């Protein structure tokens, strides 16, 4: 199959307006005859479900949490970008577009990214109208701050809880539609397969997590808004429940998976303390506005620090290496995440790491506290400092924070065209779950923007086009595909429940995470990746022999839920490794040691790799087929990314 991204013709700035005009509309009286299934209720899912219901469609939403509001969008801290140019500092839609394309290391589509920048301004208006309490200035107007990878202040924020407030806004819009009877929400339901009839997605199979009942739901279109797959690394800043299952099942039903190896490692997370650790906690990127990243200049000093013989405060100024400020004078501590992460890793690899494990660098606020006063720093970052103190028992007002990179976001995801439709008709993918807008590296404060752009302002138009095409005829739930898919789900659950071996599912997950982090993490090599592929296969085989899954299906069974998710991660892991292997260049978060500049920066190979790698599932155990969507740049010139 030839991949057609369906990017509209014409000048960049007119593509979306023209496309919206060309999309078919559904007659208002017919809208109530359609049902749309929305899986996942984070920013993308909740905003899409509410917007579609407002238009008149019947919507069903599904989430595995006990409330739509608990989706992991809730945890986003820093902010949301929008090209409002409220600061008069030279921002524009084009600049946001350009920064995002560049930040993504030229591996995203111009058309998509421009549209994202274009609708960013509407998102802020929408959220404010819903009552989202963004930070404000004394004059009563909205405040902004700057974020990594940008030299303008275009980030809107609500203290350190922007994602929470945005999600609560979308959730309130969703609640309104539930009240109106247009949305029916299925909480504590997990999607376990897509029903595809004659090449069209027409339903899903879900498990009621409380009763274990396997249900089918029919709909004219299915929207997957199920977030990223960062938990394949076991330790990540994702929530414990974040998983790839919905996207992976769709992949196995024909949706191509794009750029799976593009994962974002966030530079400012709280370092790991031990094997017991179940997740990593992010410290917002906004901290880099005032915090200075440094490591000791010599291994000797670092060693003394690690042994606790000296304190960080005793290290003289000339013995400190503020490596980001030194190497990137123009952007300093505000370089994009991939660059900051790689430099932290480099410092640690060179024996300059701090903390008892040696796997951390400092993020120091002493200068900011001296310049602004402790109260101002507290007002800006108080909740983050408190969180750091809770977790580490160290007071960041008195001593520098210890930070280390951690898996945070996945740029890869289901391949979608300009309409956000996957390679399966009627199956759409929104937000982090798709691959479309961030290329090989996502800029800070862009994930919230993308999730809401897809849900509020893109899908309401594009899904209408498809629905108008297929017509409002009711979906026939008696089609054998529904029963067959349901049986397949039951079969897999029974297989999982038959596992009564010796090793816990968590243990497999932990080992998979180690493999992924070691070989498919911040630095990747041909040799390491090849090794990882073998290790993952072995681990997967062992899982299906020796794992233990207690309990039965007909009850609330968290072990069973986890087992299903880890089984899917064990398959995805291999695909990520395959993808990383074929992409022999470095770009953004994908750093192949074989491809770097003399200064150790990521070296792209635009001639051979300026494409989207979209993988097609063939059969269990069989290699997947790679399809390439060439990336065409008509407006920006591809250059070596420089933040110096």
């Amino acid at each position, binding site marked *: 199959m030839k991949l057609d991204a369906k990017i509209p013709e014409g000048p960049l700035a007119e593509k979306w307006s023209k496309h919206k005009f060309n999309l078919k509309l559904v007659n208002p009286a017919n809208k109530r005859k359609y049902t749309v299934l929305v899986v996942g209720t984070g920013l993308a899912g909740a905003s899409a479900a509410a917007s579609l219901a407002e238009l008149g469609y019947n919507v069903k939403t599904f989430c595995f949490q006990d409330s739509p509001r608990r989706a992991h969008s809730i945890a986003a801290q820093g902010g949301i970008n929008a090209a409002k140019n409220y600061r008069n500092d030279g921002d524009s839609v084009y600049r946001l577009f350009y920064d995002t394309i560049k930040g993504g290391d030229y591996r995203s589509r111009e058309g998509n990214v421009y549209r994202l920048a274009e609708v960013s301004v509407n998102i802020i208006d929408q959220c404010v109208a819903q009552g989202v309490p963004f930070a404000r200035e004394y004059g*009563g107007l909205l405040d902004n701050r700057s974020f990594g990878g940008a030299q303008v202040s275009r980030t809107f924020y609500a203290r350190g809880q922007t994602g929470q407030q945005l999600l609560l806004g979308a959730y309130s819009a969703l609640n309104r539609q539930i009240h109106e009877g247009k949305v029916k929400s299925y909480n504590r339901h997990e999607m376990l397969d897509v029903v595809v009839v004659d090449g069209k997605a027409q339903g899903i199979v879900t498990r009621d997590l409380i009763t274990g009942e396997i249900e089918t739901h029919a709909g004219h279109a299915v929207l997957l808004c199920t977030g990223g797959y960062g938990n394949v690394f076991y330790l990540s800043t994702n929530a414990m429940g974040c998983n790839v299952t919905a996207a992976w099942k769709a992949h196995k039903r024909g949706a191509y998976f794009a750029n799976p190896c593009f994962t974002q490692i966030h530079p400012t997370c709280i370092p790991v303390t031990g094997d017991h650790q179940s997740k990593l906690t*992010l410290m917002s990127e906004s901290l880099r506005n005032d915090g200075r990243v440094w490591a000791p200049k010599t291994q000797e000093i670092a060693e003394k620090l690690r042994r606790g013989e000296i304190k960080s405060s005793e290290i003289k100024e000339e013995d400190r290496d503020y490596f980001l400020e030194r190497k990137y004078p123009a952007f300093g501590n505000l370089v994009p995440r991939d660059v900051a992460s790689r430099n932290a890793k480099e410092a640690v690899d060179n024996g300059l790491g701090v903390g008892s494990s040696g796997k951390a660098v400092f993020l120091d606020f002493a200068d900011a506290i001296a310049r602004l006063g402790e109260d101002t720093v507290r007002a800006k970052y108080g909740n983050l400092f408190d969180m750091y103190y809770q977790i580490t028992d160290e007071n960041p007002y008195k001593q520098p924070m210890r930070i280390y990179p951690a898996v945070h976001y996945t740029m890869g995801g289901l391949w979608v065209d300009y309409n956000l439709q996957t390679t399966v008709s009627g199956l759409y993918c929104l937000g982090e779950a798709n691959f479309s807008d961030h290329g090989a590296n996502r800029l800070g404060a862009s994930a919230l923007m993308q999730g809401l752009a897809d849900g509020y302002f893109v899908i309401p138009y594009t899904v209408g086009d498809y629905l108008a095409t297929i017509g409002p005829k009711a979906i026939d739930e008696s089609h054998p595909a529904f029963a067959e898919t349901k049986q397949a789900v039951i079969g897999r659950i029974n297989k999982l429940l038959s596992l009564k071996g010796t090793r816990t599912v968590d243990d497999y997950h932990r080992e998979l995470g180690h493999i992924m982090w070691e070989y498919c993490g911040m630095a990747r090599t041909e040799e390491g990746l090849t090794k990882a592929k073998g290790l993952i296969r072995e681990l997967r085989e062992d899982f299906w022999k020796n794992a233990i899954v207690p309990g039965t299906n007909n009850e609330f069974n968290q072990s069973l839920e986890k087992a299903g998710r880890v089984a899917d991660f064990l398959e995805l892991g291999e695909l990520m490794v395959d993808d990383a292997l074929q992409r022999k260049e470095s770009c953004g978060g994908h750093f192949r040691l074989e491809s770097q500049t003399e200064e150790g920066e990521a070296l792209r190979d635009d001639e051979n790799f300026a494409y989207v790698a979209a993988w097609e599932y063939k059969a269990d155990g069989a290699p997947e087929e790679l399809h390439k969507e060439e990336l065409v740049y008509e407006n920006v010139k591809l250059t070596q990314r420089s933040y110096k």
Partner: protein
Amino acid sequence: MSGHMNLTLKVWRQKSPQDKGGFVTYKADGISEDMSFLEMLDVVNEGLIKKGDDPIHFDHDCREGICGMCSLYINGRPHGPKRAVTTCQLHMRSFKDGETITIEPWRAAAFPVIKDLSTNRAAFERIQQAGGYVSVNTGGVPDANEIPIPKVIADEAFNSATCIQCGACVAACKNSSAMLFVSAKVSQLALLPQGQQERYRRVQAMVAQMDAEGFGNCTNTGACEAECPKEISLTNIARMNREYFTAKFFKEEEIH
């Protein structure tokens, strides 16, 4: 760097909503001080699974104190002994070696137990569906800066909006009252200009739903505020009362 401790856990186990349930005692040995409370339970669960037993079920997700999924009534207090902290952010250094820790689910008629320590908090959903929103459709809204809001109002609304819907207020309240939660939701929109159009309808609708769910009545003990992991203030309750009585006695808007 960190000490290890041995603990005794008294955990509420209940197979299903219908089951009577009871306490089961477990040993948790070799627990690191750096573990979070939930990581300690993970360790206990790994042991149970290896023995072929059903692990202790408890709700949790983000483990960074923001999703509101985790609960647990630990030694007589929701979210354990520390103030302004969720269970997932509670670390074992807050406990002593050799301690016995009693872990119970939230107790309220409106939050029935699903299994073990996990409860059904759908009542909170329904209260918000009754009116916790501003009725604006996507698109067609004014420019964000056309609605100036004094910083002090925006900050106050934000404070109310930080509620994570965990239900600790209900669990802490001796009457199982949901007033702190409902009032935080009512307050956020009552304070902001965007919420004015539906202000008096909203408070009536949400209070009516709260009553229908079978929560108890507020006696202003302040336990909710003291135990709220996000330190939502009692002022919200006074504000909601004011809004409600104003709506009932002096306004004509009714619930639709």
